[in-house]
């Protein structure tokens, strides 16, 4: 009996996944192949054209989302790695406090945080209004309703998800390994490049995974901070589903996005030299 215990304990989680992940995904896949409208009903016709139509119609928003997500992820990596490094190696006994500070913004809702950016960055608000008053900025200068605001919002909202996995990876680097590198006359830079960085790569991988995927699919930042021509694919899914009640197209877009992201992740895993994606993410 005892040897079955782990299986019984794992059962709720498996059931949870089966009911709330597998079933809806299967249902969504089914809906994405139907045709019709809400009033007359949707019939299963296995029409793949939903996909080609959606991609043709929304290719701009698809590419834009991938671009915004990509740029945001690179910025987060550049900003986040030093922070993670600093907390892991230099913060000493205050480590936990800094980690707490990092997570503090999450006690406020995502939407609210984004909206508060709107206040901060208003054309004549606290920041720009003052700078314009001093003549440091031209009158017409604005950040809200631009691409910069959307990408900035993405970076701000997802940055902790980049820092934490990298921190965990760096934290686990054995200090004696670094000492050994110095003993072998490696410079500080060479130690970092050939010892610390490779050991932290699984963290970088997980960080990119945890930021690129949600940033690409996010509708909130584009809606609150963006202007014309900043619509992302998440906004399109919302519109197609809620406004147009076009469930097949909304599902087809979601699946396409999922496929694109999965393919991207596997390519990225190969490029990073990770033999096995899941293994890297699990480490």
């Amino acid at each position, binding site marked *: 009996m005892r040897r079955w215990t782990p299986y019984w304990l794992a059962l709720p989680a*498996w*059931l949870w996944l*089966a*009911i*709330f992940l*597998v*079933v*809806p*995904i*299967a*249902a*969504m*896949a*089914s*809906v994405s192949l*139907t045709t*019709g*409208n*809400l*009033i*007359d*009903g*949707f*019939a*299963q016709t296995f029409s793949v054209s939903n996909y080609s139509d959606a991609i043709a119609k929304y290719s*701009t*928003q698809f590419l834009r989302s991938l671009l915004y997500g990509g740029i945001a992820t690179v910025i987060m990596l550049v900003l986040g790695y030093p922070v993670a490094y600093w907390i892991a190696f230099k913060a000493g006994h205050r480590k936990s406090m800094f980690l707490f500070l990092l997570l503090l913004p999450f006690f406020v809702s995502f939407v609210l945080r984004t909206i508060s950016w*709107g206040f901060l960055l*208003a*054309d*004549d*608000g606290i920041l720009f209004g003052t700078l314009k008053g001093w003549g440091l900025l031209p009158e*017409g200068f*604005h950040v*809200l*309703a631009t691409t910069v605001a959307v990408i900035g919002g993405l970076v701000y909202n997802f940055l902790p998800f980049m820092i934490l996995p990298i921190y965990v990876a760096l934290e686990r680097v054995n200090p004696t390994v670094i000492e050994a590198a110095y003993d072998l006359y490696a410079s500080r830079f060479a130690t970092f490049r050939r010892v610390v960085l490779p050991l932290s790569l699984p963290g970088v991988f997980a960080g990119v995974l945890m930021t690129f995927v949600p940033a690409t699919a996010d509708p909130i930042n584009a*809606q*609150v901070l*963006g*202007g*014309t*021509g900043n*619509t992302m694919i998440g*906004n*399109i*899914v919302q*519109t197609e*589903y*809620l*406004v*147009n*009640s*076009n*469930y097949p197209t*909304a*599902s087809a877009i*979601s699946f396409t996005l999922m496929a694109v992201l999965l393919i991207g992740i596997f390519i990225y895993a190969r490029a990073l030299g990770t033999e096995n994606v899941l293994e890297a993410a699990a480490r």
Partner: protein
Amino acid sequence: MNNPLLRGLTQSRYSRRDAMRVAGFSAAGLALAACGVSGQKPPAAAPSEAASAAADFWSTQKKNGKVVFANWPEYMPEDQAPLKQFQQATGISYEYSEVIQENAEFFGKSEPQLRAGQPLGYDIIVMTNGVHLGKMLQLGYLVALDHKQLPNFAANAGAKYKNPAYDANNTYTIPYQAGVTGIAYNTKYVDEDITSIASLFDKKYEGKVGMMADAQEVANFGMFATGVDPDKSTQADWEKAAAKLKEQRDQGIVRKYYAQDYIDAVAKGDIWLSQAWSGDVFQRQLAGEPVKFVVPQEGGTIWIDNMAIPKGAANPVDALMLMDFLYKPEVAAELTDYIQYVTPVNGVQQILAAKDDKDSKALAESPLIFPTEADYAKLRSYRTLTNAEEPIFNGLFQTITQG
């Protein structure tokens, strides 16, 4: 991904017991994969049949002493005085929640539940005349009202708010409040009197113009700009309007297509002029902000937020009583005093004018709250779109707002 979708898909096909039986087995997934979402279009019943069915329904309903009212934010005085009065007068306790933020979102969330024949948990809902209320009606999700139990409505509803085009004879809905879509502008930045819709298309205001994200709202103004009455428009008119709006966007005149937050942007000066709803602007004026509202000479739209009883409501009789109670002029006056939109109830203007405080007097005199006949002459209604037209219409205008 989308909870309502998931809920709808799992619930429409299986009762809870069935779901328990198959829970966790991939068979459920496979079974679901084989089916689509079935339509709920009710078979077209003859009007007399529908009427007798409604009569049968109401003859079996009783007062339960409870009512649940789902409404929009800031659409009821904070002290809920009208509802408290209702409770005192009738002994019916109420539950009031501000769960409706957008017609589309509310419809999207409710639709799977209503399709599955499950109660929403609300006895009264409030929806604007437009595409989504139209879908509720077409899908048969609303209960036909028993007008015998709505004497105040019959006596006090303004003639303009009875028998609307979208719901003949108020069979399923009666108005809660109405409002006007026009232009709001910040007088700190705009130093001319805005009178024409052309100002929204003026290169002078490049990057300082706000338009609405809603396809119908934005389309209506495109049509006014091209000299078309939206209510009588054809597809050719839409295409012309879309071209005009696209040009406006591509020239960089529009800063953003707003959902709700345009009025903050106008007040802060992020944009200088914008498409706007009358009540929003009036609330800002009372707060002393330099915003003005105007119905452009080419026309503005009037929309009506309607009360309705969703199918499966637990307390329909109590709901009718509350709906009718809100048509007492003195109750309606309290609503107007706080909400500051256009009231569909006659007699409110006189009550407000007779009050002592100057804010109420200002309301009674405001053409934003009580449009004059000349204003009404400029106001047009939303176009009712057929099922075939809707995707064409949305396709034309959403590619502009979500380009």
